[in-house]
């Protein structure tokens, strides 16, 4: 349910080589051009938007791998 917002943040901060709105839920964001720098920018934007804090243990490739993975992480944080 956060997918639309996440896609919006991704297209603003992810600097992907493709349109974030056209990505499948499980498409690999790193293959789409996400880097460590853009991961950090995306994370900060998500934190601001949803007023959450990512724990250090969540900061790994798996969390940011796809829109689906990001949704799961966000749901966990908003719980």
């Amino acid at each position: 349910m956060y997918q639309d917002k996440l896609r919006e943040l991704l297209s603003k901060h992810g600097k992907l080589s493709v349109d974030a709105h056209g990505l499948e839920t499980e498409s690999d964001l790193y293959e789409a051009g996400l880097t460590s720098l853009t991961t950090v920018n995306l994370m900060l934007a998500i934190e601001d938007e949803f007023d959450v804090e990512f724990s250090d243990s969540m900061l790994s490739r798996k969390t940011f791998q796809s829109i689906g993975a990001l949704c799961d992480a966000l749901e966990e944080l908003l719980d």
Partner: protein
Amino acid sequence: MSDSRQGSRFRTYTEIVELVETLGKGVVEQHASDVDDKARFPEEAFAAFKEARLLSAMVPQSLGGDGLNIKQLCKLCEILGQYCASTAMVYAMHQIQVACLVNHALTSSYFQQYLADLVEHQYLLASATTELGIGGDLRSSICGLELEGDNFKLVKQAPVISYALNADAILVTCRANTDAAASDQVHVLVKTKKCEFEQIAGWDTLGFRGTCSSGYTLTAAGHVEQVIPAPFATILSKSMHPVSHVLWGSLWTGLAASAVKKARQAVRHAYRKNPDMPPVTSLRLSEVDELLFSMRGGLYQSIEEYQGLLDGDCDDAFTNFGFSIRTNNVKLRCSEMVVDIVGKALMIVGIMGYKNDSPVSLSRHIRDAYGAALMVNNDRIRGHNATMQIAMRDS
């Protein structure tokens, strides 16, 4: 005997450590100066290592190797680093490549056979990641596999490949194919007998002269089964990155320890001459020993963490920002502390350490030490950490 068994049992880790100590004090140290002077490959040491089957130390016992883990390999590199940092560096670089194969290629029957052959023939493996136009950025390549059916051709402009001409095979990073994105990389094993090397740069350097890290245009050909069956990003995060940092850190610690040892000899010598007055240098020795203590402490902590993650079999942990930062920290700290420590050791040893022809010369130590921060430039590594630090809440 085609494996490391002696009679009906495998040799123990303790036996291997003793063997490496003996070779270190013997053949490695004997030729260290000449290797450095002539910037030549440490061939006597490697002939002895092959004879002692040390190139397969990390290959699983089921394939005939010793099955040592990373923590044990680190100890061997620390020992060798005390006697000749170039020899230790070549040994470490070989083991980094073996670790990549052992951790990521054993699902392939081709690589199982290759590692069994490595045990039998004691193959030496080199690495070509650095590329002209890209430098030390491991996650991008310009060159790509030119595929034709099941065969490939590959041309890489490699400004630095250590001991390329003494190696049996080279693990090369490149794009998955010529149309792939720069970060869509594979790690492929090419056999040097089937490669052409056109030298583009020499290796007349300040230190690490025995690594013979000249540059080449490497032209290779082979079969697609020589591509490691895992994405390079995974190989890098789980194996190449952490293994190289802890093995390098270990041999630099050996190098630092050896400088401190020379300082210690000098202090004792001074004290013997004048037993009534504790020399100022003994205070300096205490100080430099504290630095070595910190260097080793950080290194061992990092080795423990990495070995724990490998034993725990939790693949996600290797891409965790905290783990990556700490893995970088160990490289950054060790490579800078080694310079500080050998410099302080020189102050203690004094003029005899400054001379090239004295038995307590520190010339090679100092020159080698300065190479550590450049092997993938520390500023580049710090740059990665700086990005990740923004996201972290705790250290």
